[in-house]
């Protein structure tokens, strides 16, 4: 009897459980923080150390997984006969690795803040365990976002990434600006989530399956068919738009970006740093997966009427971000707009893949360019926000004026900030240039010359506002006394600057080479639609929309 019951449950086999190891690592970290708080008492130090250990451990699991996954193309958790719920392939492993690396960096930044920032450190330390549960929770959500092709899991993953983020944005409860930022974030997130859920429910209603690859195939056949009514095509576009709204929110693509500046300004600086990179990286990962799996087949079958959509989104996002950054006086806000602009640059890689014709060799360089860009962007933002944090903790202000005379008051921090800023512009010899150059190469290769022009024009715009900070640091000195910053913080930002310099010249070749190698393993995700026929899909034989319209 008991055996019969046990048999009626679906039990994943051990291989599959091991395959999703990186996700266990992050989920385990959450549990460990909670348990440690119960057993050892509430201690911020313990929680932060557990977070760093968990992140490192997960990164290590990623490393051990990578070669095994590379052989078998993918490993995942799929219910018997169903399409995979979780899919830990090289793509996912790369992004989880980056997320873990960044999680450890942000935790380090938090520790520096807790040790120096007298005003807030008491509350900081008291609520450490909650903070880290939420932080790791959002990291877990981001890891899920990049390791699934199931629409239900996508919704859950985005919520898993978003809900804890809302809470950590408003973590300083006494801070009115933080509370307002958090509320804005919640409302915006709720609306976009609703749009996405709506889009996904439409897709599920049309096709009776949640598997993205399956839907991609069906969508492309339906759109390619000549007898598909215009209304049906419009509905599919609406559904896809809804899906994109949810992801656009995560990467703050225009017009889903309005939350970004307020949230970045209101949240504490560690949280801002976290969101500026991790949230965007995960969102881009998910977007690329969907573009490659769902939408790329569109290009195979016919001349895609939506072919310039992603390119337009990218161009507008980039331009709006850069133009809106001009009048900002708060460095955090300025960097928020800069992160919107960079999301635009990165979306350009998505535009290439979206338009890639089958058999063309443009998609691999695009993936490689995106990988290079995200890696360099991670360090640029870590450095820029890290310097801003150090200045904020030393002066109590994050306005551009607070940076005045920094070249004299704290030359090393100023130098690190300069490197990060001009790397963000995309000037040689910094890593930002290599990233942008490789992206431009990929754009050029797929004949998107107008996007090249947009990207370069934007670089010129951005030079102006980034150099305003450089101006304050070196050209305008209000004679305030020098200050010292914690050694660990200095080491962090200088390390980021050194990595940017290294990726700019000496190891640029190695970085691009690795990224290319990696991308060639990644790209087959689009072609990988040959899973065992899903039971659910077989049961509800999808009816073409054309046949489903009213008599």
């Amino acid at each position: 009897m008991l055996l019969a019951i046990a048999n009626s449950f679906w039990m994943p086999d051990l291989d599959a459980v091991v395959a999703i190891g990186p996700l266990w690592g992050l989920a385990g970290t959450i549990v460990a923080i909670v348990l440690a708080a119960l057993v050892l008492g509430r201690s911020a130090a313990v929680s932060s150390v557990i977070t760093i250990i968990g992140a490192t451990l997960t990164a290590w699991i990623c490393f051990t997984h990578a070669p095994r996954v590379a052989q078998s193309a993918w490993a995942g958790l799929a219910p018997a006969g169903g399409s995979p719920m979780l899919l830990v392939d090289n793509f996912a492993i790369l992004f989880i690795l980056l997320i873990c690396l960044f999680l450890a960096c942000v935790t380090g930044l938090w520790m520096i803040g807790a040790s120096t920032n007298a005003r807030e450190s008491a509350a900081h330390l008291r609520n450490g365990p909650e903070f880290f549960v939420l932080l790791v929770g959002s990291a877990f959500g981001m890891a899920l976002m990049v390791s699934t092709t199931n629409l239900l899991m996508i919704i859950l993953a985005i919520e898993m990434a978003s809900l804890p983020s809302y809470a950590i944005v408003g973590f300083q409860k006494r801070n009115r600006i933080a509370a307002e930022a958090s509320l804005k974030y919640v409302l915006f997130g709720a609306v976009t989530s609703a749009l996405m859920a709506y889009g996904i429910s439409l897709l599920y209603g049309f096709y009776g399956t949640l598997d993205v690859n399956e839907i991609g195939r069906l969508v492309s056949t339906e759109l390619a068919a000549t007898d598909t009514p215009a209304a049906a095509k419009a509905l599919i576009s609406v559904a896809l738009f809804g899906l994109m709204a949810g992801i656009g929110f995560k990467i703050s693509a225009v017009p889903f970006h309005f939350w970004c500046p307020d949230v970045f300004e209101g949240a504490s600086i560690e949280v801002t740093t976290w969101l500026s990179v991790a949230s965007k990286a995960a969102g881009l990962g998910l977007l690329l997966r969907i573009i490659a799996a769902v939408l790329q087949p569109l290009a195979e079958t016919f001349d895609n009427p939506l072919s310039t959509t992603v390119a337009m989104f990218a161009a507008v996002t980039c331009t709006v971000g850069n133009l809106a950054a001009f009048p900002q006086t708060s460095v955090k806000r300025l960097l928020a707009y800069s992160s919107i602009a960079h999301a635009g640059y990165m979306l350009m890689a998505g535009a290439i893949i979206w338009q890639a014709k089958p058999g063309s060799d443009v998609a691999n360089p695009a993936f490689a360019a995106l990988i290079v860009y995200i890696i360099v962007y991670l360090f640029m933002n870590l450095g820029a926000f890290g310097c801003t944090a150090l200045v904020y903790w030393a002066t109590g202000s994050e306005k551009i004026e607070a940076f005045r005379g920094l070249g004299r008051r704290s030359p090393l921090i100023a130098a690190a900030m300069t490197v990060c800023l001009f790397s963000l512009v995309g000037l040689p010899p910094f890593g930002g240039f290599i990233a942008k150059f490789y992206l431009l190469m990929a754009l050029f290769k797929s004949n998107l010359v107008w996007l090249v022009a947009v990207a370069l024009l934007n670089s010129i715009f951005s030079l102006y506002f980034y150099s305003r900070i450089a101006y304050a640091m070196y050209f305008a000195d209000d004679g305030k006394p020098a200050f010292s910053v914690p050694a660990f913080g200095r080491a962090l930002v200088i390390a980021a600057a050194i990595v940017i310099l290294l990726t700019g010249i000496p190891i640029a070749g190695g970085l691009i080479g690795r990224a290319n190698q990696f991308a060639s393993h990644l790209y087959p995700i689009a072609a990988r639609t040959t899973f065992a026929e899903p039971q659910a899909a077989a049961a509800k034989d999808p009816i073409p929309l054309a046949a489903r319209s009213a008599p």
Partner: protein
Amino acid sequence: MNVNTWLEPIVFFLFAGVVLFSAIGIVLTRNIVRAALFLLGTLGGVAGLYFLLMANLLAAIQLIVYAGGTLVLIVFGVMLTSKSPWVRFAPSRSEAAAATTIGLVLFAALAKIVTGIDWTVAAHPADQPATVRQVGNLLLQQYLVPFEVASVLLLVVMIGAAYLARPEN
């Protein structure tokens, strides 16, 4: 003669009536708490319709999430934000006009869909097994992973909510 053939229409019109009259009540009443109460009637009536369609789980969710959760949230929201619970609605003309327009457009669209569909019943819902069992099976088999992820999500969110709601010291 099957009891369903005469009982079903009666129950249907009963629930439909509740939905309809409560909806009209929401529009007409000026008292915000009363409007909330009427909303309960509408939501409950829709739940009843779901029961009638043998969509047990959906009906239960309707009652738990909307009637139980959302409505309570609305009432709390009203009571926490307004100075007295007897606040009265005073929609301006433009607001009323906008609401009417949207309502009419929505009604027209729905009416077109309803009249455009061939309502021939293909299979009687009673032939299907109970939905709760089906959903339960799916949740613990095919959708075990999302189910577990949702539980992690709830754990984390609960911790966040507890933190935000807890008074400082």
